[in-house]
């Protein structure tokens, strides 16, 4: 008897190989070197890995243009336009957050490259989620991402907050993973496979007489995902963890986890369970409305900027789910555009928060931001742009992002939901604008100047500039999101 090994299309899994490979190289270098490695080594390795991923993505995009989308490794991994764009966004998030972390590690006088090893490993998990075509592979990607993040949240051992937040994240994250994988087990029982392609084929060709197990599985899967993207009512961990985690890690979480989880969520729910839309739409409807309104209204009463941004990201998750609710190719493109433009903006916002927070990540009260733009027009101006982009102001990327998911929902017949989402956006704009106005208010109690190191300054500048440039010049990113179609998604 011979063992049949599945064929491997190495180009498809090269981004994961690069990030994991870079993590292993750094791990060996750290183990073999005499002293502690300088943080610069880690930053350089992460930057090269990200750039290598961009180059690979370019070749992948051409491969898809020539040969079409494909699956490899016995249908476990898929290479399609959607996965390439999601991978690039994840690598961009890795690069930007590594630059922010570079300055943060210097300020907190931490040597060593462990931080970078963990972010590289976690990033590969997010990439696996974006490319997975099998529920078990999604689960593995989710866990590689989450386990790396549990450690990263606890990274600052000098703060009691940090370890506490990690423990909360770990217990609730483990709970969510168990719910997710139980959902996967039930779907396996109902359809006979964990491969998304087979599930989709089975559901397209069979009429289930009793589909209780399938529905239970679908519900549990969505609950598991909702925990990970922090959608209301499964968001309670997020303010604590955002506050307790080191600020660069918070930025990384807000961006990379959302991209990875939404990529997998869209692939599972909109693409392979698209035939069950009548079942999952009401669930997503409730998640959208609750996330948008609870996120926006609870953010209004926050006194800590990291908690405020946590609720802001809950609110944003609601809008991203709106694109999923429509379930059409347009909705998927809208959500992809949303996470694509949200990533640099949110990491740059947390870069400002990391700088203003000062030594030990202590100064996160809103008072610290009073008059920031008067003292430092450039830093305050950049933060203004970043906040306006998140609120969805015209001439920023946030505007078209919100427009595209709302338009997709209207297209799919969800006018009431679209109206609710617009009302929610107006409530959310209120707390963003309140923070912006306080940036320009005078009467700061103890004005301190915030030092802006080069790496963080670059990230903040990049975030603000892309928010404006691609907010005015919409077509390149929008058409990219539109062409990055999911494999097997039926075009309406």
């Amino acid at each position, binding site marked *: 008897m011979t063992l049949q090994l599945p064929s491997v299309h190495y180009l498809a899994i090269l981004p994961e190989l690069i990030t994991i490979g870079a993590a292993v190289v750094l791990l060996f270098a750290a183990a073999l070197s005499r002293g502690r490695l300088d943080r610069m080594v880690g930053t350089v390795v992460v930057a090269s890995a990200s750039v290598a991923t961009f180059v690979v993505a370019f070749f992948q995009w051409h491969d898809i243009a020539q040969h079409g989308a494909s699956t490899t490794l016995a249908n476990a991994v898929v290479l399609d336009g959607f996965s390439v764009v999601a991978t690039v966004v994840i690598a961009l998030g890795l690069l930007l957050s590594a630059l922010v972390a570079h300055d943060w590690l210097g300020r907190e006088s931490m040597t060593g490259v462990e931080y970078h090893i963990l972010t590289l490993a976690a990033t590969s998990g997010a990439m696996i989620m974006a490319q997975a075509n099998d529920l*078990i592979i999604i*689960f*593995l990607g989710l*866990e590689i991402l989450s*386990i790396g993040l*549990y*450690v990263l949240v*606890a990274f600052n*051992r000098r703060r*009691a*907050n940090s*370890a*506490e*937040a*990690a*423990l*909360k994240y*770990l*217990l609730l994250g*483990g*709970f969510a*993973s*168990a*719910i997710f*994988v*139980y959902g*996967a*087990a*039930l779907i*396996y*029982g109902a359809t*006979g*496979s*964990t491969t998304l392609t087979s599930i989709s084929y089975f559901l397209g060709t069979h009429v289930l007489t009793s589909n209780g197990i399938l529905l239970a599985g679908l519900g549990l899967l969505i609950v598991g995902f909702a925990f990970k993207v922090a959608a209301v009512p499964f968001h*309670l*961990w997020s*303010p*604590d963890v955002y*506050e*307790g985690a080191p600020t660069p890690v918070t930025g990384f979480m807000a961006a990379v986890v959302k991209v990875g989880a939404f990529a997998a969520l869209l692939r599972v729910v909109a693409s392979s369970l698209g035939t069950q839309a009548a079942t999952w739409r009401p669930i997503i409807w409730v998640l959208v409305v609750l996330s948008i309104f609870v996120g926006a209204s609870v953010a209004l009463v926050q006194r800590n900027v990291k908690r405020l941004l946590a609720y802001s990201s809950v609110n944003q998750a609601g809008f991203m789910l709106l694109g999923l609710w429509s379930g059409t190719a347009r909705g998927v493109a809208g959500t992809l555009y949303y996470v694509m433009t949200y990533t640099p903006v949110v990491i740059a916002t947390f870069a400002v928060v990391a700088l203003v927070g000062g030594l030990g990540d202590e100064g996160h009260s809103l008072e610290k931001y009073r008059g920031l733009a008067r003292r430092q027009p450039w830093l305050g101006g950049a933060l203004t742009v970043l906040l306006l982009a998140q609120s969805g102001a015209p001439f920023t990327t946030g505007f078209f992002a919100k427009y595209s998911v709302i338009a997709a929902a209207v297209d799919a017949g969800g006018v009431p939901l679209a109206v609710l989402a617009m009302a929610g956006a107006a409530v959310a704009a209120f707390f963003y604008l309140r923070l912006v106005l306080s940036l320009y208010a005078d009467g700061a109690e103890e004005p301190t100047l915030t030092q802006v190191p080069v790496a963080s300054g670059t990230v903040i500048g990049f975030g603000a500039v892309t928010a404006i440039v691609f907010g005015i010049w919409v077509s390149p990113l929008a058409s990219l999101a539109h062409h990055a179609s999911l494999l097997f998604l039926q075009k309406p």
Partner: protein
Amino acid sequence: MTIPASWYLIVAAMLFGIGAFGLLTRRNALIMFMCVELMLNAVNLTFVTFAHSLKDIGGQAAVFFILVVAAAEVTVGLGIVVAVFRRRSSTTVDELSELKG
């Protein structure tokens, strides 16, 4: 005499429910970990049952992945519990009140 597959599924669902209930009600971090493990093992039982009744090896293979993930999660988790314990000499999560949920 063979036991029908649905019995195994019901046992698994009960185990999962007990794990979830314990996680939400108990306040000791170590017990909460055990509850997560119980939930994952309930999933394993579900996978094996379905794999047996579907005559498909894929579900049994999934169990190995879940076992490995559970082990990795516990390794990291106990590390974090030790880090918290060093500061507070207690593993009761109610005493972790620096962050208010």
